């Protein structure tokens, strides 16, 4: 018989917040330590990050520009996480969405179709591309017995190679292929932005819609309940009659579609062409956001915002402090690490006190 430690202690709200606060504190200490080791002034660095994020209207809206794809990806990942899947392949799904979108725009840019139609088709193609790439992960898992982490990771590499081939091969700029990407789209085929800023209200709207959709799905639908059941106990869910394979696929396809849409937005609203780093690491970052938000939709909105702010804020660090802008990555990674660590410590500590109080039963 296995020793199953059942959590019987009902923790208070404040205790939970306290633990989270401790994690954040430790993450800050860790990052400060790293800064000190590299010889940079920590307080100045933090100040620069805050200024870099909120210093001007343009910068503040840039946060939203970064938040949109991150939020889309995170929403999708909340679907797969609820189903108990580690969809590491989300990076590749973003890339395939970007590729599909670029393909459609390039194919239709010289036709007479009105630009809004072309853009809509392009975005739909992006969703389809991402979903298809996620579907591959599902097929590998169900029919090949390949865990989705390995399948996803492998397909990420394939996606990266695919995008490089396209940019340097069939879709290269006339003359020479270069890392700056494909030929930029004509202005009428760029997703319209607010005047003077890089933020597109359409993109913002889509991100907000995706969050709302996932929220409703997970909380109020049978679809969400079944995903939750599968994620918590696949075997029991199967025995109780939930079509597990079908729902695993649906979760993957849903996440792939949202990731693909994020890729589409990067192409049509931000860069207006296909570039090698089109995904900007939003896939992996989205995984971190979901983990830090404890897989809750409500928490993931501010956490994604915070991460986006960190990203934007550290862009100018190389210039002002000769620090690499990946400082934001250090902070983000440290935060997630310490939160997870504290969760483990807390679970151990709670289990120990539960067992001790049951002695002599």
């Amino acid at each position, binding site marked *: *018989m296995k*020793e*199953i430690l*059942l959590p*019987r202690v009902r923790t208070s709200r404040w205790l939970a917040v306290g633990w989270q606060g401790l994690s954040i504190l430790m993450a800050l200490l860790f990052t400060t330590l790293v800064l000190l080791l590299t010889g940079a002034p920590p307080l100045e660095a933090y100040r620069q990050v805050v200024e870099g994020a909120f210093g001007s209207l343009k910068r503040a809206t840039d946060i939203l520009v970064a938040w949109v794809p991150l939020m889309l990806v995170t929403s999708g990942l909340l679907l797969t996480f609820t189903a108990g899947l580690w969809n590491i392949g989300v990076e590749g799904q973003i890339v395939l969405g970007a590729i599909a979108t670029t393909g459609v725009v390039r194919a239709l840019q010289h036709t007479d179709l009105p630009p809004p139609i072309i853009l809509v088709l392009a975005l739909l193609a992006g969703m389809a591309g991402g979903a298809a790439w996620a579907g591959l992960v599902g097929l590998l898992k169900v029919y090949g017995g390949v865990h989705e982490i390995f399948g996803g990771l492998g397909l990420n590499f394939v996606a990266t190679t695919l995008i490089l081939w396209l940019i340097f091969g069939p879709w290269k700029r006339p003359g020479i292929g270069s890392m700056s990407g494909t030929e930029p789209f004509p202005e009428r085929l760029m997703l319209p932005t607010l005047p003077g800023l890089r933020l597109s209200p359409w993109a913002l709207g889509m991100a907000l819609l995706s969050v709302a959709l996932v929220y409703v799905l997970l909380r*109020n*639908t*049978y*679809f969400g*309940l*079944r995903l*939750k*059941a599968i994620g*918590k*106990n696949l*075997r*029991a*869910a*199967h*025995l*109780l*009659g*939930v*079509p597990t394979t079908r729902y695993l696929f649906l979760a993957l396809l849903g996440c792939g579609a949202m990731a693909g849409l994020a890729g589409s937005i990067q192409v049509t609203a931000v860069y207006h062409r296909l570039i090698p780093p089109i995904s900007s690491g939003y896939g992996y970052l989205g995984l971190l956001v979901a983990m830090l938000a404890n897989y809750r939709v409500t928490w993931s909105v501010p956490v994604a915002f915070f991460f986006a702010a960190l990203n934007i804020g550290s862009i100018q660090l190389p210039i002002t402090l000769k620090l690499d802008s990946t400082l934001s990555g250090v902070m983000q990674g440290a935060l997630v690490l310490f939160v997870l660590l504290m969760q483990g410590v807390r679970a151990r500590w709670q289990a120990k006190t539960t067992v001790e109080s*049951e*002695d*002599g*039963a």
Partner: protein
Amino acid sequence: MKVEMRHIYKSFGPVRALQDVSLTVQAGTIHGLLGENGAGKTTLMKILSGYLRPDRGEILLDGQAVRFRSPAEGLRHGIGMLHQDPMDFPALSVLDNFMMGHEGGLWLDRRGARRALKELADAFGFDLDPDARVDSLTVGERQQLELLRLLWRGVRVLILDEPTTGISAPQKARLFATLRRLAEEGKAVIFVTHKLEEAEELCHRVTVLRQGRLAGEVTPPYSPARLIELMFGRPVPMPERERIPLGEPVLEVQDLVVGDHRLRLSQVRLTVRAGEIIGLAGMEGSGQQLLMRACAGLIRPWEGTIRVSGRDLTGKPYSAFLEAGVLYVPANRLEEGLIPGLTLTEHFQLVYPNGRHLIDWEQARAEAQRRIREFHIRGRPETPVEALSGGNQQRTLLALIRTPARLLLLEHPTRGLDVESSLWVWERLKERARQGTALMVVSSDLQELMQYCHRIVVFFSGRVSEPIDAEQLTLDRLGHMIAGRGW
């Protein structure tokens, strides 16, 4: 080495696995540990080997009190356990498995290990190829390897948990010869089994456990009747069994051959009619679970057919069985039956959805409340199932059985329940039978089976009896058959 376990208590949450169990094993003897499933034999041995820690009580080795924190520590004190399922590394070679866990410096001494393996294997007459992969060996050979590995580590107390399941007759003979020899060399051997014959043949002394307590200790000459009585207890006068008119055949199993890596059931023939309650009796691992899962559509049989209400469902997926009204309720409540983390309301909505897409939580809560009342579940709609007691989890499982059902397959429905809950469960099951559902129940409580079932099928080591009318059975005979005698 002399082993003493004194006044051992062990509970898992509300389940009292062991209560005041004491055991003394002298060096140079083979000591048998006999008992039904759930009696506590494996738990007791896991405590001795260091895998579990007792809540109360002490362990003395050669008079010295010891406290183990892990099996490794147990091994260092010379106690080794051979588990029922081989705990080895199938993808590695025999030699690597042999060396596993051996304490030694940084470098692997393969040559030394190879020599030791050959010496030990020759000494005991085992034939093992050091370079073969372990997953190519038979269960008996894997057992031999494990034995040698423990001997090389210098064990002085050897615990074997149901070692003869799944090994051939010559391998068994060799095992017994080996154990006798080890005892002669001064080691203490503890032989956990449910098979009377083997206990009689091999052991110098037998301790019997029943429901977590010490039932008795006997020395040769052994009386099988006495052993059965100790294992199962005295029969209790039983109320009249209900005579329900039986209906059409619901389940027809013909010439079924099904198995896994340890066990193989052959030529099983069974017909169950509507309203009938069939009991599957036997020790755990004797094949009842295999048959149940095959009838539920979870395992594909190798040969034979399964028909449900006339339709041939052999080889069809689980969903087909569900649709045909075959419902399976597993024994592991939290691992396979329920979803920890989900509330009662959520469970009910999974099985009895009120709509197609959107969930009306108000309505769902009210419905959950209704079912909670109907099934006397001590819990609220928002209670997560892992917070319920075992009895209430079982009631929840029953509440989750869809109606109507043609065939209900229940594994140990009253395991770990108090008398009141057990009675209540059987009342519900009888009600289902009255409504025309056919039931197949696996249970290790023989009295329960005798009391409620119309016919009983006995399983022993892969052999399946013909269904026996319960009225023609006595508790005595049933106990004998389960332990391998009287077939």
